């Protein structure tokens, strides 16, 4: 069992996303995160999803995805060298001395404080999923009010590209 990052290029059409998501629930595969947006070619969407499974299941997942009529291309980018990024907005309680603590932590993780209130800070942070998890852990006693993560997006580290 391994974390997989599966990249899907598909028609930017209504119903396409529900077919992908439906496929996962229908066949009993998990989705840990999902991220989707149109590409530079507005007729296409790029969808990245992460899941944890073994090789056999990954093979079935990619084949089943490819079989969907709206799907143009599928690539398990975790198979080769790749870049993985996720963005997180995290709102934490920050009063008195907690404020320097949060600020320090955010600096260490190269985050940015993007919103400030008298009782809270909102930090924006990006990196791979492990780094974001690490930040939350590093906050220690500081109470987290809200976490919003984009889910992973990724790209292969080579000239090879997922395009038409």
């Amino acid at each position, binding site marked *: 069992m391994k974390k997989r990052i599966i990249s899907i290029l*598909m*028609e930017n059409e*209504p*119903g396409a996303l*529900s*077919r992908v998501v*439906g496929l996962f629930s*229908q066949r009993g595969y998990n989705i840990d995160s999902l991220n989707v947006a149109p590409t530079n070619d507005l007729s296409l969407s790029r969808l990245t999803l992460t899941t944890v499974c073994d090789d*056999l299941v990954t*093979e*079935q997942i990619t*084949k*089943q995805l*490819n*079989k969907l*009529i*709206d*799907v*143009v291309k599928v690539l398990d980018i975790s198979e080769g060298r790749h870049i993985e990024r996720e963005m997180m907005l995290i709102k934490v309680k920050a009063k008195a001395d907690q404020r320097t603590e949060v600020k320090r932590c955010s600096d260490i993780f190269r985050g940015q404080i993007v919103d400030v209130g008298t009782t809270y800070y909102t930090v924006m942070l990006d990196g791979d999923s492990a780094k974001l998890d690490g930040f939350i852990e590093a906050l220690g006693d500081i109470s987290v009010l809200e976490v919003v993560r984009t889910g992973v997006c990724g790209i292969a580290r080579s000239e090879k590209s997922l395009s*038409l």
Partner: protein
Amino acid sequence: MTEMLSGGDALIRALKDEGVELVFGYPGGAALHIYDAIFRQQDVEHILVRHEQAATHAADGYARTSGKVGTVLVTSGPGATNAVTGIATAYMDSIPMVVISGQVPSSKIGEDAFQETDMVGVSRPVVKHSFLVKDAKDIPMTIKKAYHIARTGRPGPVVVDIPKDVTNPHDKFEYSYPETIDIRSYQPVKKGHPGQIRKAMKTVLAAKRPIIYIGGGAVQSDSSDQIRKLVDELGYPVTNTLMGLGAYPGTSEKNLGMLGMHGTYESNMAMHHADVILVLGARLDDRTTNNTKKYCPDATIVHVDIDPTTISKTIQCDIPIVGPLEEVVGDMLDYLEENAQRADEKDLATWWEQCNNWREQHSIYLKPNHEPSKGEMIKPQDVLKALYKVTNGDAIVCSDVGQHQMFAAQYYHFDKPRQWINSGGLGTMGFGLPAAMGAIFADRDTPVACVTGEGSIQMCIQELSTCSQYHLPVKIINVNNQALGMVKQWQDMNYEGRYSQSLYEESLPDFIKLAEAYGHVGIKVTKFEELEEKMAECFAMTDRVVFMDIYVDPMEHVYPMHVPEGSMRDMWVSKTERI
């Protein structure tokens, strides 16, 4: 030359331009513009069924018999949801079908309007693809795409949902039907990989205990002739799945018969002991494999299929070939023409000797595994044997689901593809009669039998009325064991005979009167001596619907039967003998 047409007229014109001759359907509010368009033309014939489920099964039977795409038209809401069972049935067996459903007007979608259901959503897990048409101008291209997708690659059902305003007779547009189509995200494979085919042939030719395993894909792709040549050339034993029956002649010496849960002893034994299995167009589902962990321990598996997801889904494959079966088998034949090497003659002879030994031990065709029928005790197996005899093996047999279906698969020897029509994947009771109607529309010259049980037939019995309206002379062979026999068999074998809800307590209708009420002929058979004669009488009435209600032994079981969780070779061969 272009013409101004409304969405409704354009839809029917597009069907005509696509070559559609027949539509099975049922009207309702959201489809009324379309129905009016149907009324005003002559090219596309509409068949009014009595339930939307039957429309899909009839279109399915038509598709399976003719090889063409079946077409269905239903209204929104209940019309659409009634069609879902038939869509799922077609999906599981890879049958090409286009289902057009009316939808509430675009402006009302999402408001829980009268008879609104999200048909695209409801059908999503059981379609190859679906469309929601938003603009009348998109109708021709959508229909073109729908038929292209339904028919090509691994065939399957496609839903086209059309809101009522899109078919409005007052909104006209310039109609033209696209001549060609290219869907960039849908490019079915056209050839098998040559390197893989060579590798596969080397393995197949080096085999000592080979078997050729033929599935429903062989029927769907019309590869029978090619496969026959391949078998002739190789001389290997053949087995088929329930869906593959007829793709290779059932009466051929080379054919060991059906494999799987109720497959023949000789086929299942040959599978278990094989060293190379050449799978042609099959998906190795649980009803054929038994316990996958114990599956054919010595076998190298060469698997040819148009759909890559079927390969290594349940059984790890050694040499996969993705491609259209007719092409791949053609390439295999070319390979054999160019390469003189064949399997070792002595090895093959030894293997054949072994296979024939298995036949002698427990073939149901050499040694019946049931008591003989006599007097008032008719054995269901003998009903199918009589059917085979009376029809000379030439009928199109459309089956329902249950014991009678397995007996039909075992005792009717199908020599031709598209002669055996049954719901294998979904196992849909109620399929038989409407499918038989579709088969008759596809082939008016061949007798069509609906083999059914008193349970299954009652799931779509209303279609006896459709049979009257369109003069569809189905011969209904009701193997009446006065029980949900297959359920009862499992209750006998696994629940110590506790017949929970598998009996009807004297509530069965008088099927003869029922048939007569619809204007048909009914023939009741209770004595074995009369069986063949009455069956001959039935088929002699070529232009009538005949309902044969044949009372059979309610205690009979289907054998062989796989021992649950065992390997391919673990079977009950009769009520008392387990191998």
